[in-house]
């Protein structure tokens, strides 16, 4: 690309544009242009000579737009006759819709105090939304108990399959490994006292009371809770939830209730399975590393555990199931109407679920201690 500026005797600035113009070569510098236009005496008008112009694209347009802006500021006339027809058309098109000044967003940062205020208001609002959601879910549950909730039974069975049977492989892997780790950590200390047989107690009680429920819940929060949020969020984006509402079907009963039921039913079962897998994992470690015979390990585990220990874990698992389902569905229903909002919903579902799992675990542990379980 080449640009030359010539001053005609009648004080016209002729811009001679030639060569190939392509955005691949970058945009021309505008310093010379500004100098020419700003020079004294100011040019009366600007004309173009494009007889040597070969190919052109947006780079020429961008240059001309800048030239036009400069001339407008100095109120210099522009004669577009010398430009190729296509260029003139595109320039007119670009200028056809004037820039909407009020459309431009107000830049600049908001002051600190107003940001704090906004955050506080948002926190209050989201707490309100969460409480409303829990309330609605409870009402739906009561409807279910009275046999009036409307949802498709086949959905429920599909969901049960999704968050039950299909979760078995990952739950197996995680809980066997957690059992192994518990046994290993315990063994290192207990061996010092020659009390390695108590590894079986440690693993059994640890898995049954705490780790089985906790690990299963966290796996399910990442696996199923996020899926619920993404699923409901996408339905919100596609207006599927609106379609349910306008048909008079409560999305709470139709979508949220079966998901909650499925998780509340399946999480304790998965937890029981995880308990046993964890004990198996501990057993592998005990037999392999500590030379305890399988029978010994088994007997010690039976001695250490009773049904109460399992009940403690299973009740926790039930509570976690409600929490994971609630947070997944809540974040899904709150989802905005864009692809990135679905991603945010899934993320925040997992975060909410894990935080509430840990907090409720702490609360339950204190309660169990008080009632002597």
């Amino acid at each position, binding site marked *: 690309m080449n640009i030359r500026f010539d001053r005609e005797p009648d004080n016209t600035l002729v811009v001679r544009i030639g060569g190939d113009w392509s*955005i*691949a070569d*970058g*945009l021309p510098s505008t310093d010379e242009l500004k100098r020419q236009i700003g020079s004294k005496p100011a040019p009366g008008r600007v004309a173009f000579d494009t007889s040597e112009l*070969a*190919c*052109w*694209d*947006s*780079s020429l*347009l*961008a240059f001309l*737009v*800048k030239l036009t802006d400069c001339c407008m500021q100095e109120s210099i006339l522009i004669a577009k006759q010398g430009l*190729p*027809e*296509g*260029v003139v*058309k*595109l320039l007119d*098109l*670009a*200028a*056809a*819709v*004037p*820039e*909407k*000044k009020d*459309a*431009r*967003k107000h830049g600049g940062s908001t002051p600190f105090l107003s940001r704090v205020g906004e955050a506080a208001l948002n926190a209050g609002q989201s707490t309100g939304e969460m409480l409303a959601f829990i309330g609605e879910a409870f009402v739906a549950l009561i409807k279910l108990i009275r046999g009036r909730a409307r949802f498709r039974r086949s959905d429920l069975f599909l969901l049960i399959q999704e968050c039950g049977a299909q979760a078995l492989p990952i739950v197996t892997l995680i809980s066997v490994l957690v059992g192994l780790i518990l046994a290993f950590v315990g063994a290192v200390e207990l061996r010092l006292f020659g009390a390695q047989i108590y590894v079986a107690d440690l693993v059994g009680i640890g898995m049954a009371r705490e780790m089985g429920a906790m690990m299963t819940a966290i796996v399910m929060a990442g696996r199923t809770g996020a899926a619920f949020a993404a699923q409901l969020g996408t339905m919100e984006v596609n207006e599927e939830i609106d379609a349910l509402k306008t048909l008079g079907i409560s999305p709470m009963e139709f979508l949220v209730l079966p998901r909650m039921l499925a998780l509340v039913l399946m999480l304790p079962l998965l937890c029981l399975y995880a308990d046993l897998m964890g004990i198996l994992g501990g057993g592998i470690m005990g037999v392999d590393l500590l030379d305890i015979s399988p029978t010994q390990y088994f007997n010690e585990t039976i001695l250490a555990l009773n049904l109460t220990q399992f009940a403690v874990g299973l009740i926790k698992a039930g509570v976690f199931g409600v929490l994971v389902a609630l947070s997944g569905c809540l974040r899904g229903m709150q989802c*905005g*109407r*864009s*692809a*990135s*909002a679905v991603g945010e919903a899934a993320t925040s579902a997992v975060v909410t679920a894990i935080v509430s799992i840990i907090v409720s675990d702490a609360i339950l542990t204190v309660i169990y201690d008080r009632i002597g379980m």
Partner: protein
Amino acid sequence: MENQLSKKEACIEVRDLTMEYGSFVIQRNLSFTVNRGDIFVIMGESGCGKSTLLRHMVGLKEPASGLVLYDGASFWDCDLPGRRTLMRRFGILYQSGALWSSMTLAENVALPLGEYTSLSPVEIKELVSLKLSLAGLAGFEEFYPSEISGGMRKRAALARAMALDPDILFFDEPSAGLDPISARRLDELILELRDSLGATIVVVTHELASIFAIANNSVFLDADARTMTAVGDPHRLLHESNDPKIRSFLTRGESN
């Protein structure tokens, strides 16, 4: 980009194209030529495979058999870098805009420029403003796609499709979901772009008003026969075609 309207040379050529999903044949034996500077319309009833044909032409789906030639070079016989180079010549406007929702309009248009040119951020910003103002969206740089109306989203998507000054533009149902006036403005914009940029434009649509306003060549896909039943200027097809299906399509079923 010179005005090359005067020369009638083939830009895109489709030869014996067969499209399949699995073993289900959607359309077979499609053969037609799109000349440089044409506005070529792919028309037909819903579900006849119009969008699928577009996906085959832009390289999103590999044909079961047959060729798609660009300036004589077969798209699917090129190696990957060759295909990338060809695809760089395309600008595609997707049915629902397909703007990236986590980016502002300016970022949406700037992404192809940043990826494929060595322009500085300031230069990219200038070009982005230019493209948005060409689409009638000057001043909307900082908006997210979710904050603007459907028609504006379409135009923003058009600005993105034009970002790299493509010489072939593909439009998938450009006027779907637009009010008649916005749809007409978009048609005018398409004509304007063809005339000033000399671009070749392929449009998938079943909006009759649009077809007659912009097209100078077209292909009609028949869903039942699973092949094309006519090719040519839709104005001519309206008067000359003997196929009752095409006649009724082009007259909104009022001819029979």
